[in-house]
């Protein structure tokens, strides 16, 4: 492969009087888990929004496998293999657990509005195929037994697993997880960590927003430290976590 896998260079974004991202640069290696850390309001979610085409940066660019993403719509970016989750989940609350996953499966013609009328049998076959594909993803994340349930009946931990299941369905190779472990019970936390590590072993690449330094040390191959929209440091987890200057910023001097 030529050049880095995912490369964020000099990205800046202003919201009114607030500089959310300020000359932000870092890179991600394929097959690794990169953790994006930094205090609240550091711009972590904004980084996700820029990479996935949800917001257009004022300056700088994002390249993925050598292609410039910065002017692409989110549709093409997902097509290239990047899919993101949301900090506030954004599950389809009225849809079943299974349908939350099927909607994230890619489609060429199966979602054509006239297809069910023009080719009803074909559409039915595709529907079954999509349901089976979604079901096998739910099995992988351990939610198969809840496939028919409404999302609102899931526990918070299950809802967060479902968010990862949706990203898996998209077929993306690079998954961006926005605070996948926040608010989880100890048991749900272990399930999430195990799932992410399993997916990594299967070849997927991750960029994960994570606050807990102990979880960072368990997950991360590389850590990007963001502060006031600027990357202060990128490196091995042990080095970043041990850096007293970063600790002071992160914990407000509590370390």
């Amino acid at each position, binding site marked *: 492969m030529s050049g880095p896998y995912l490369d964020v260079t000099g990205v800046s974004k202003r919201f009114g009087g607030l500089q959310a991202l300020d000359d932000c640069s870092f890179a991600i290696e394929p097959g690794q888990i990169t953790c994006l850390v930094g205090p609240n309001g550091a711009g972590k979610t904004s980084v996700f929004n820029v990479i996935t085409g949800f917001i257009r940066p004022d300056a700088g660019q994002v390249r993925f496998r050598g292609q410039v993403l910065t002017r692409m719509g989110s*549709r093409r*970016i997902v097509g290239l293999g990047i*899919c993101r*989750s949301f900090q506030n989940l*954004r599950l389809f609350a*009225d849809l079943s657990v299974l349908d939350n996953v099927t*909607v994230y499966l890619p489609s060429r013609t*199966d979602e054509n*509005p006239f297809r069910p009328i023009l080719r009803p049998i074909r559409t039915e076959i595709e529907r079954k195929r999509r349901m089976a594909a979604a079901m096998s993803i739910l099995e992988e994340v351990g939610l198969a037994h809840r496939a028919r349930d409404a999302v609102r009946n899931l526990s918070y931990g299950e809802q967060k697993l479902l968010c990862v299941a949706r990203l898996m369905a998209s077929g993306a190779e690079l998954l961006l997880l926005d605070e996948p472990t926040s608010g989880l019970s100890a048991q749900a936390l272990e399930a999430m960590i195990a799932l992410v590590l399993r997916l990594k072993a299967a070849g997927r690449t991750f960029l994960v927003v994570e606050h807990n330094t102990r979880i960072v040390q368990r997950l991360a191959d590389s850590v990007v430290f963001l502060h006031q929209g600027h990357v202060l440091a990128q490196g091995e987890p042990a080095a970043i976590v041990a850096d007293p200057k970063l600790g002071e910023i992160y914990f407000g001097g509590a370390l």
Partner: protein
Amino acid sequence: MNFFLSYLAIAEIYALASMSTNLLVGVTGIFSVSQGAIFGIGAYTVGILTLNDWASFPVAMAAALILCALTNLAVALPALRIAGDYFVVTSFGIQIAATAVFMNLTDITGGASGLAGVPPPNVFGRDLDEPGAFILLSSIVLAAAALFFWLVLRSPFGRLINAIREDELAVTAAGKSVLAAKVGVSALSGMFVGLAGGLYAGFLSFIDPGSFDIDASILLLTMIVVGGARTLAGSLIGPALLTALPQVLSVLPIPSDAAGPLRQILYGLMLIAFMLFRPQGIAGRRL
């Protein structure tokens, strides 16, 4: 007997229109208040084409279907980029504009006095001028439309438009084009209500702007609120009940000039009562 068959024919026509409203408003969450206008375009298309002998009934129906799909698309396209509450205002504007066109394009629509003498549907060389004969046609069209409605709802596209109602941003994050899906559902929905409009003109043989104004749009919305959003049963039950109301009022000892306002009041009360006490309607889901 004729009385009952007429009621049934009207109920079937509104059931077709309700499926259209359900796809757009109930499933996708595009809160349109211009369904009456599109219904009217279907009716005027068939009325004008068959009255002037410019086209046979089946060809006129096909024209209504295509024209309504295209109109719905054209009015939807700019508005679909506008979110939520603003769409209601835009769609209200479209309804008002359409009524003005029906009223003032006097040469072809007959203006406020409407179009009289629209010929009954003629299919396979037979005039369906009896309710008993017409009901055969409207039932076949309704059955086919119901099948399509059911197929669309269970298809991957059906899942997609349900997801769009729930969270457009999450659909965008899945790499799907929300706009393309909305354009698709607008066209589909236009086709359903276009068929309804065409049958309406052929059945009543008289159409005027009053049948396709904002009140008509609200009636179409009330039908899915009462029947229930997002289900086939809801699209059938709502129109069946609401089109029965004028018939019931007409046999009650009420002065005929009070029947119209009374009907509107009852529609309004039903809308409020269902929203408050049974938002999922009789056989549907919450709007």
